[in-house]
């Protein structure tokens, strides 16, 4: 029998041993369980052949995923990228974009621009999926619906170039006063407020898509809410829509260009945006394409996937609240914030995705100037990275504001992984170099827009994607009348330059105006560039011809095909 004293001594040792045995046993049991479950899962998934893989050669179908479910598919109301992507497969506007992002004839066979008058001639074989012809009336009806104040479309403003559209949307004029008329079933005449150089490009945008009035009325306000509550005139028709689960698109036999559509069907079988889920779906050949996040790159390389990249043309930046009661309306404070950050570090060290570029100007690098790219002709202006100078500006700001300390600033950000990381990066940069306290207000997209409109922020991590292929889509962002000017920045000099660009048809005059806008933005320190967004993605080796687009559907499968190995 051992003495109580020696038992005391061995407490820790034997108890530790006991714990160690428990731990080992737990690990062994869990490992065995995992292997067993994996085995069972393997049995059931190979048995359940009903769940199609990424590529179904026999039926000429592919399976893809959507980041989230489209809220609805009414083209006059769609404003999110998933809806726009799905509608890009189901519908076609007057014009469409070809493989190299240039406009080509769509529903319209040809068109003429004559000052403020644009005439579109529709093709005779343009048909809806129920066999009815697509007529000029369908366009007029859709546009009226989109600018009807009762529709409250987020994208109504994109129709403002049409005569009276802005006034109708504000409720000042009746709907019928819109400057678009169907001369006959196949001729559409559009009267513009003023001549604009890019109106033809605009008509390829989602909000300009047609809608059959007869069918719309028959749906009793449910248009676009379900697969059978819609009509299609694009390459595919929506045959089933299981909400929260899947969408199935089949080839449209009535499409005028059906010969160019090679796939029989596309199934959006998964609605997921979690990187680990996507990684596993792609690894198991359940989806034909997956976006890659920074965490997935190493696995993607090890798996020897064919990785691709694509820049979607959008620019992300930090934007300020210029309402007078906010301290971010102070120029010196904005300059101080500018000088302590370096977008190269954010992109190369923190975001770490090969598709991203540091944003140096509101005008992204791909925009065309007069002859070369806009940025080659009007180089971006940048503040130096200079912490000492930044602190001087901060002191000036404190004096001007009459504050001993700058109160905490609210940084409104999205909840996406990249936005979360960027927000925390800036929070620390501003704290470390300027001693500022930043409160991160992370909100989902819809909530963030609501807060932006209400002005409940000091700083925003904002982004802007091009709606059409012209620098104006970026230049009017800080115009005083633009609803997307969330900080309510007001500068008559900038407004004047935007007006010049809108009203002129001369490329040089317009580009000079954009150059001037770029200079004013720099001078007033309106913009801290974060990144120009890129996507890194992997595609199934057998699926070819997937287009990634800057305008319209960000991933376009309408011309994709399956390559059968010999």
């Amino acid at each position: 029998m051992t003495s109580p004293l020696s038992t005391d001594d061995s407490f820790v040792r034997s108890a530790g041993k006991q714990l160690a045995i428990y731990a080992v046993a737990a690990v062994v049991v869990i490992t065995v369980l995992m292997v067993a479950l994996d085995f069972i899962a393997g049995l059931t998934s190979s048995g359940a052949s009903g769940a199609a893989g990424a590529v179904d050669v026999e039926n000429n179908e592919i399976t893809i995923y959507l980041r989230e479910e489209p809220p609805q598919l009414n083209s006059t109301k769609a404003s999110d990228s998933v809806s726009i992507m799905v509608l890009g497969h189901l519908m076609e506007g007057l014009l469409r974009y070809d493989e190299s992002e240039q406009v080509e004839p769509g529903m319209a066979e040809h068109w003429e621009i004559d000052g403020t008058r644009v005439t579109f001639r529709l093709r005779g074989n343009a048909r809806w999926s129920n066999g009815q012809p697509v007529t000029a009336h369908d366009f007029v009806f859709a546009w009226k619906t989109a600018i009807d104040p009762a529709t409250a479309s987020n994208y109504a403003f994109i129709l403002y170039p049409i005569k009276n559209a802005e006034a109708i949307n504000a409720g000042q004029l009746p709907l019928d006063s819109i400057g678009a008329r169907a001369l006959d079933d196949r001729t559409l005449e559009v009267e513009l407020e003023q001549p604009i150089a890019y109106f033809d490009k605009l008509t390829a945008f989602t909000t300009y898509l047609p809608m059959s009035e007869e069918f719309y009325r028959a749906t009793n306000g449910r248009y676009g809410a379900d697969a059978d509550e819609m009509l299609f005139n694009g390459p595919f028709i929506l045959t089933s829509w299981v909400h929260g689960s899947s969408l199935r698109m089949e080839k449209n036999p009535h499409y005028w260009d059906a010969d160019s559509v090679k796939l029989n069907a596309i199934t959006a079988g998964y609605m997921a945006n979690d990187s680990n889920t996507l990684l596993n779906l792609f690894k198991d050949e359940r989806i034909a394409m997956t976006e890659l996040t920074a965490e997935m790159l190493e696995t993607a390389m090890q798996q020897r996937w064919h990785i691709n990249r694509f820049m979607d043309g959008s620019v992300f930046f930090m934007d300020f609240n210029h309402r007078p009661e906010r301290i971010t309306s102070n120029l010196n404070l904005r300059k101080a914030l500018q000088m302590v950050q370096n977008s190269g570090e954010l992109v190369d060290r923190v975001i770490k995705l090969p598709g991203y570029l540091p944003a140096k100007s509101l005008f992204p690098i791909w925009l065309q100037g007069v002859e070369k790219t806009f940025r080659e002709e009007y180089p971006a202006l940048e503040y130096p990275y200079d912490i000492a100078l930044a602190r001087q500006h901060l002191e000036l700001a404190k004096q001007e504001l009459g504050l001993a300390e700058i109160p905490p600033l609210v940084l409104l950000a999205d909840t996406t992984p990249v936005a979360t990381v960027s927000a925390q990066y800036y929070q620390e940069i501003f704290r470390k170099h300027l001693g500022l306290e930043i409160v991160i207000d992370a909100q989902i997209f819809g909530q963030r827009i609501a807060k932006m409109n209400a002005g409940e922020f000091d700083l925003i991590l904002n982004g802007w994607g091009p709606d059409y292929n012209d620098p104006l889509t970026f230049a009017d962002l800080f115009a005083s009348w633009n609803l997307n000017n969330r900080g309510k920045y007001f500068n008559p000099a900038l407004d004047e330059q935007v007006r010049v660009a809108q009203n002129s048809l001369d490329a040089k005059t317009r580009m000079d105006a954009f150059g001037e806008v770029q200079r004013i933005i720099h001078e007033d320190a309106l913009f801290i560039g974060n990144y120009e967004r890129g996507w890194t993605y992997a595609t199934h080796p057998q699926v070819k011809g997937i287009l990634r687009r800057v305008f319209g559907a960000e991933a376009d499968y309408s011309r994709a095909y399956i390559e059968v190995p010999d």
Partner: protein
Amino acid sequence: MTTPVSHSQILNSADFAPITQRADVHAISRPSQSYWQDAWARLKKNRRAIVSLWLIVGLLAFALLGPWLWQIDPARQDIDQISQAPGADRSATIVAPYAPWDGTVAAEFAGGSGLRLAMAANSQAVRLHWDAVPGAAGFRLYRNIFAADDEMAFGLPIADFPTPAAGYYEDRLDLRPDTYYYTLAVQAADGTLTANYQTLAVPVNRVITLDEVRERELAPAEAALDIGDEVHLALHPLGTDYLGRDMLARLMAGAQVSLFIGIIAPFLYVLLGVAYGATAGFVGGRVDQLLMRFADFVVALPFLLFMILFQVVFGIGPGESGIVPMLIALVVLAWPATARLVRGQILQIRQEAYISASRLLGARSSYLVWRHMIPNTMGVILVTLTFAVPSAIFTEAFLSFIGMGVAPPTASWGSMSNEGLARMLTHPHELIFPSLFISITVLAFNLLGDGLRDALDARMRSFE
């Protein structure tokens, strides 16, 4: 009946000598032990419980003394060491500050053909250049972590060049001390890759500029450093997270949050539950009915919903810490379990004979409660408390995991686990450490609670 035995056979006169007073008699008998001394003695014999107790003491020291010993700001971002695993190499060579590059080739790298280096490669930048390829429509430059093989999986596409001319490129994307394999693939006119490609293996070593050494205080201020000298980057014993923040410092900060919630919240709600349950049990009758039905009502309230409501009511905006509403929600919603338990005990004790005797002798209610009721329910209360702690810690971790707890940059084990989850496959240490701490803490409190239950159970005294 026994057979009579003669006295002389078993007794003699010495047996009848008077007994002397012996001093050691009392020492032989077992000392008188109070309930608590006895419980402690039995707890000490339970090895698991004692080890758990030491673990908890260790965790408290980790949370309270740790930040004092390891004075690293948990929010500080070490951009040079992002997602660094524990024990990784930290040496870096000092180089000149980064300067934009215009494509000129350094003298010692002149000559050669194909894809090649234009300057010494380091973690600041890898500068490559190449010759024109006749017939090519353009190039695409790839970077990989292993050599290209016949599958033509070249890794990450990092740049595109739409001309067949000679070109140059500077890669600065997340360069770590490792060997990278660059591939320059030739594109056909339609943008597809041809089978024509050139590869280059580039070993990259870590560098740092003098300014960065000074800013990050990696060397003593008086040390004379020059380009080419070697320094060690800041030490991170448990590695860093996805923003280069020190894991050890964050785990300590997280321990403070977790243990604060884990100890304060159960203490408060057990106190509330004891008072409530004791009142119900002691008063009895209609009051008891009323109080216990109210407790049933509180049990039915959904915790998560109330947590959100409390955040709204307290005006906790986004970006502000949700710890106070979490504490209040826990206290307001978690007390009924304790109250029920204590009420049951009190009801039982009320029927005991010694209570009736005490009453007959004229004891007042307050005396009964303080002398008899509370001490006799103490065991139950303590056990409830130790089991409440791990569940509160787990609740905190869960709420922070789903983003309702602490606000960035404050760390909590739950929020760290959530952030680590996304990088589980590539940087497992970011998930393993916080989840290990949650598991160990919860296990330790549970084992201690188990031991305490055994030790405090008076009926187990006889089974020693």
